[in-house]
């Protein structure tokens, strides 16, 4: 039974989850990754999901990111009931509303830093060239990668790659950025830099950031912390106080 119960679904929330369950496998081999999870996330929040490995963090982020669908329950992301989206609509929805930052950076190796950031604007959003350049340059400057823009991913450091990934996630002005363990492959100093960068972007752009981590030091940087254990939400902390639903 979840500790936190969403009262209502409203478009004022970026994410509303009501009794969301996710099962993998079938028959006797069924594995319940999430067990009736409910929560809401307000716009421009800086939210973290924490928990040990296997607690359901990644599964939850995948559901919010419309990469997967809940087995049961309701899930609204940016006002959209994601259960109603088909494969094509999910892709379109992700392109229009969401940004992703991956643990392994997942930059496209054949494209330069500039082109990697430009990619969603070309392939996903069909943004005109002039507008594209303006937005890429702005976001490159914001993440401090302007001088590295012509390098390929294998020519820059891990921290720089994640900066590029942050820039790529933000360039299309998404309402929500999802980051699954964004600092797991970085040293602690660089990890803080990336979290600071994400927070700075949230402050400047009012974009909602949701990230998962198991690093307790990094968790402290979030403003709202949801704790997961065995597929259930067991705790919610809001910076400056503790709230148990």
């Amino acid at each position: 039974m979840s500790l936190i119960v969403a009262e209502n679904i409203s478009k004022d929330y970026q994410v509303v989850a009501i009794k969301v369950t996710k099962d993998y496998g079938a028959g006797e081999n069924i594995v319940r990754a999430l067990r009736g999870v409910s929560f809401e996330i307000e716009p421009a929040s800086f939210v973290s999901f924490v928990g040990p490995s296997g607690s359901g963090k990644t599964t939850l982020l995948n559901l919010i990111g419309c990469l997967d669908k809940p087995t049961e329950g309701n899930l609204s992301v940016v006002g959209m009931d994601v259960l109603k989206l088909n494969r094509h609509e999910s892709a379109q929805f992700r392109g229009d509303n969401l940004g992703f930052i991956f643990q392994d950076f997942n930059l496209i190796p054949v494209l330069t830093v500039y082109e990697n950031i430009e990619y969603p604007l070309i392939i996903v959003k069909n943004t005109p060239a002039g507008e594209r350049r303006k937005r890429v340059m702005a976001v490159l400057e914001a993440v401090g990668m302007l001088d590295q823009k012509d390098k390929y991913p294998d020519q820059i450091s891990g921290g720089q790659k994640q900066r590029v990934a942050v820039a790529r996630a933000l360039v299309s002005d998404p309402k929500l950025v999802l980051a699954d363990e964004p600092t797991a492959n970085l040293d602690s100093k660089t990890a803080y830099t990336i979290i600071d960068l994400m927070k700075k972007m949230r402050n400047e752009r009012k974009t909602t950031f949701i990230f998962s981590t198991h690093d307790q030091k990094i968790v402290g940087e979030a403003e709202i912390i949801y704790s997961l254990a065995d597929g259930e939400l067991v705790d919610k902390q809001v910076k400056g106080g503790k709230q148990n639903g």
Partner: protein
Amino acid sequence: MGNLFKIAVRNLFRYKRRTILTTSLIAIGVIFVLGYISISGSFKNMMIGQITDSMMGHLQVHRKGYVASIENLPLNLNLKPQAVKKLEGILSQQPEVEAYSPRIKFGGMFSTFVETTNVRLNGVYPDKEFKTVPLLASRITEGQKALNRGEILLPELLARGMKAKIGDMVVIVATNQDGSVNGKQFKVSGILESATGPGGRDGYVHIEDAMEVLRMSAMEISEVAIRLKDFSKGEAFTQKLDGLLSGEVNKEGKPALEVHSWQQLSPFYNIARMIDMMTIFIQLMLIAVVLISIMNVMIMAVYERIREIGTIAAIGTLPTKILSMFIMEGLCLGVIGVVIGNVIGLAIIFILNVSGWVTFDFGRQKGLVLSPTLDPMNMLVISAIVIFVSVVASLQPALKASRMEPIKALRHV
């Protein structure tokens, strides 16, 4: 589109060795096919030209049943003067016809006063015959390149066997259709090189001499050979002429005349068809090479980039775009291979033309120099086939990529 192309090209250069090997394979296939088509096509066209321009003409008109009995040279199946007049009237009005030549074909005894043997002869109007089969003059290896009354053009083998020389007097004895025998003296004015095909070892006399030997009071023609302005329209004109002559009926009410294209008259047509068939098989081999090589490369490309596919799918790339990206890669491989293959293929064909290295023998004709030529349409068709097959070969891997679940793809190690 431009960006898809850019990404596709960069992805191809990501695996340089594999790309080079695949495009080389395609290019070699294209070179081989272009070379084969140009050489075999040129050989075929040269031979067809030799046959039609040396003796046969592009098509022929006979009285019905004549061709079936042509080995006997039946004089009783010749066209009657009225039919000949009508036929000439029709032919002279056809814009497609460049020239035509009426012939009296007959067999007889050839005597040098020392030895006697058989001979097959064509009685022709020299001016009409030389226009209808323009290579006839070049077949005259000795003597004058003309034919006057009282003269005979002797086939080379006959002349050699009978030891007949230019200027010698010989006698032709023939039986006419009533069974009476007649003879006439001729002066050997030229020696004719043999040509492969029916009628390639026949001699020539003036048509009026033929009438005299055969004691014809009015001209009865065995066949009319026709030369067209455009050889490629032979089949269409054969049908047209067939239609125009269908009104000519015999006593049984059946068509009195038959029109035969060179394909129907020459056994070489079957060789030409076999060359075409082999060209198709060679093209099929090229298709197989392109299909297998590109499919292999694209399957590898998809397998190696599963996480990348997951990433681009996760950030919102539509499945159709992912499909296009991989098809574009296959297309680029095909296009690069085609361009390289065409350039090298054309260079090789040019070198073969300049050098004159390709020679061959055809029948008794020795050392014919082949000048390989390539119809631009053939090149376009080959290129289009390769590019189309490249796209088809990329389709399955591209579909696989586009249908990948992003979440599974992202988890792939």
